[in-house]
């Protein structure tokens, strides 16, 4: 699985690099430079996030997580997870590591889905730092408002469809 994913991703990289090279050497150089510099900037975050998720999952006892976010926590658990998602700051590593840690330490799948959906859609810090400066504020608030029910819909579907 992971080998196939690597092949797919690097296949896409090669195709894009060839297209860029055909349009001009500068485009190819720009793409490689920007891509690699992003990767280097992300490195410390990935290391901290991945190593951290493993330890946090083991350090937090299941008896703490389960009543609040476990499979039996139902709508309350989904609501807590959604609020936690909205309040989680940071880039991709942070939310996924917390979600993975929660799942490993006994949170229910629908609750984790609500968490990661809310965090992806309307993490407050991301709205303020990225979206508001780059887009008309009217559209940002419109999008955030219509997204409010989506984590609940995702969790409801997850509950109806059964565990993964």
């Amino acid at each position, binding site marked *: 699985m992971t080998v196939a994913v690597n092949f797919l991703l690097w296949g896409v990289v090669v195709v894009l690099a060839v297209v860029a090279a055909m349009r001009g050497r500068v485009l190819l150089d720009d793409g490689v430079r920007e891509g690699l510099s992003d990767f280097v*900037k992300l490195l*410390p975050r990935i290391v901290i996030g991945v190593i951290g998720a493993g330890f946090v999952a083991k350090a937090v006892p299941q008896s703490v997580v389960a009543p609040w976010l476990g499979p039996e926590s139902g709508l309350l658990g989904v609501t807590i997870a959604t609020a936690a998602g909205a309040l989680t700051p940071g880039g991709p590593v942070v939310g996924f590591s917390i979600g993975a840690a929660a799942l490993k330490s006994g949170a229910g799948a629908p609750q984790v889905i609500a968490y990661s959906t809310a965090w992806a859609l309307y993490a407050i810090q991301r709205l303020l730092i990225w979206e508001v400066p780059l887009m008309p504020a009217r559209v940002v608030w419109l999008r955030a408002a219509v997204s409010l029910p*989506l984590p609940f819909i995702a969790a409801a579907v997850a509950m109806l469809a059964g565990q*993964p």
Partner: protein
Amino acid sequence: MSEESPSRHRRAIDWSIAGIAALAVTAAAIVYWRDGRERFLDILGDDTLLLAEMLPKVAAGCLIAAFVTTLLPRETVARWIGHESGLAGLLIGAAFGVILPGGPFTIYPVAGALIVMGADAGAVVAFITSWTLLGYTRALVWELPFFGPHFVIWRIVEALPLPIVAGLLARVVIKAGLFGKSR
């Protein structure tokens, strides 16, 4: 990310990641003290393997994002999801969200430009929602190593209708006059 202003520059370390780092160190200390050295090393070994598995994917994801940003002109995207684009506009917006990789610094400027060029707000909402929930680089690079294929596929299948739901809701809200028609 060549056109970023300095204030938007992504820093390697900021407060949120510093917080996670503090949490990680605390958790590691608890595990070491409570469960012993062997358990600690076990977890460290597992996490290092996971990390080694992720890094090539993350590198590929960064390169894909950078190439797509340099190659895809914003005008091409705008042509497809203008005003009066109807349900097709929502679907195309959602499809673009799946295809277009990159971080917030690439997606929000594109979305902002679309609105300025007259794209329909519902289609733009569908686009951003789909990029956040269904984007394939995000799923393959980040989610898969953390959660495993079973969970990720399951989550994505469930999220499939959500961009359209969000786009339709946005149109309803605009029609109701809650956010004003334009400006």
